[in-house]
């Protein structure tokens, strides 16, 4: 049996009387590539927020490599290797591109307690941020302020920060959304080249990307997990068609 890196056990999340995630259970093993799809408002981003620790679930538990992390703060989960990116990029705007990534590297190495020395000069830190930027093809932007970057470049940087944290489990929230095709192909290449032993859960609307990337698909509709299985089967599943792909197909048909 493959070791489960991320496991959700009967997770529910309610806001007031509204149940946004309803009794969701699944697990993702080492090296797995899983896509999470579903119509808008299905509760996908809420689920990622619950997994990453930004929200505490109303019920259920989140396990990371066999350890219950439900009550742990975000930073402890990051230390354990649970890393996420954001649907709308969140970057450190007053820092340079290199500093954004270097800070992630230094945080991982426990160097941010260092109050007196110059951070960027350490060769081990430097090698790592250069590699992360190089992987995404934005090494030439290292000295730019983040505020000077185009949106597509910001998405690449967001992913570079994620890579620099050396994830064991990586949550990608629509990594290619709103990105021009040139950058999105770089993002897709970078995702393809992720270390094979890490587990990746990707929220994505672009079905071409989903089919290319995922070995397994989870479908969320109205907060419930209505399907999990092979990407090839997802299009034939009645309930999924009704909830999501049906409307997608209808829209395609109508246009």
């Amino acid at each position: 049996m493959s070791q489960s890196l991320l496991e959700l056990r009967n997770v529910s999340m309610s806001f007031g009387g509204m149940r946004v995630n309803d009794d969701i259970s699944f697990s993702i093993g080492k090296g797995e590539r899983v896509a999470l799809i579903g119509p808008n408002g299905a509760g996908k981003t809420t689920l990622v927020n619950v997994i990453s620790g930004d929200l505490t679930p109303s019920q259920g538990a989140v396990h990371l490599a066999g350890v219950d992390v439900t009550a742990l703060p975000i930073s402890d989960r990051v230390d354990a290797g649970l890393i996420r990116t954001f649907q709308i990029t969140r970057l450190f705007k007053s820092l340079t591109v290199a500093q954004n990534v270097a800070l992630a590297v230094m945080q991982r190495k426990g160097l941010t307690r260092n109050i007196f020395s110059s951070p960027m000069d350490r060769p081990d830190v430097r090698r790592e941020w250069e590699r992360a930027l190089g992987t995404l093809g934005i090494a030439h932007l290292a000295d730019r302020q983040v505020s000077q970057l185009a949106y597509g470049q910001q998405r690449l940087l967001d992913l570079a920060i994620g890579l620099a944290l050396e994830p064991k489990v990586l949550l990608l929230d629509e990594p290619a959304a709103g990105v021009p095709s040139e950058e999105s192909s770089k993002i897709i290449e970078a995702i393809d080249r992720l270390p094979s032993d890490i587990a990746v859960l990707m929220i994505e609307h672009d079905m071409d990307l989903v089919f290319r990337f995922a070995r397994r698909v989870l479908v969320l509709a109205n907060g419930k997990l209505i399907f999990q299985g092979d990407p090839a089967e997802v299009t034939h599943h009645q309930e999924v068609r009704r909830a999501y792909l049906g409307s997608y197909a209808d829209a395609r048909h109508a246009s």
Partner: protein
Amino acid sequence: MTDRAMVDGMSPPRFFVPLELRAVAITLALGALGYTLFPDDLAFLTRLISITLLVLSLDLVTGYCGVATLGHAAIYGVSAYVVGNACLAGHSDPLLLLLVGAVAGAVMGLVSGLLVTRFKGLPQLVLSIAVGQLIAALANKLSSLTGGSDGLSGISPGRIFGVYAFDMYGRTGYVFSVAVLMVVFVVLLRIVHSPFGLLCQAIKDDSLRARMIGARVYPRLVLMYGVSGVVGGIGGALNAINTGVVGLDSVGFERSAEALVMLVLGGAGSLWGALIGSIVFQVFEHYVSAANPFHWMTMVGALLIAVVLFAPKGLVSLGGLLAGRTASVLRRRP
């Protein structure tokens, strides 16, 4: 091969001067300039330096961490009172008094930080005012320690290194203050460029993102508040040492508000901005209040409005712009 090329690519330019050395040169030059411009008014300059330390201290939490506070004078005032009392109790070595001020400031900073950085936005601002007002009220009530509204007087520090006595012209006090400012400024430059300093700026930009790279936000902010407390405490100590009196104005709300105005004027989030802002504001105030005692506040207000309109990031951004223009003009010449 690539490594070698990379190192070459990153090697400093030929006339590269480390940031710290530049800071030493600039503070010393400013010190000499002040002495030449105001030889008969060194008391004004020493007061200016002491307030500059308060503004630098405020910059650490407001400019670098994004903490909104209008109670920062509490740190400055409390340490001034502690230093005054230590001196009256017979501990008159100026360096020891500075240390006492730094420790008192650190304690005050950590306590304020623990309270204030728990919250965000308006609640944070209101809480900082509350802390400031509480300290001001205590300073007024505990007259056995503070002298109440009469102030704490009779503070007479001993000789520096047992050699240099504080003279009535304020020369020793001025040189001492410039030296302290220089050391503090250089140390702060290192701190804001350290990994810890970068992380604080990252927290200011987006604290959720900072958590998502694994940062413990609250302890970092409290720690920066502690560092800020040390700097503000040294400022308060200089005030007590140089003037020999500590009054209620040193803990008051106006002192906090004025420090914030100076910081915004110079440019928050830059140590140079804090330095420029406090110098420009106080020199302007000094001249204008002497020239027109009735309407000087109006003119200070006009200056502020002009700066906020034309250089919303403070005077330091104009300096950067000017340096950039000059550099490009120089480059164009063969």
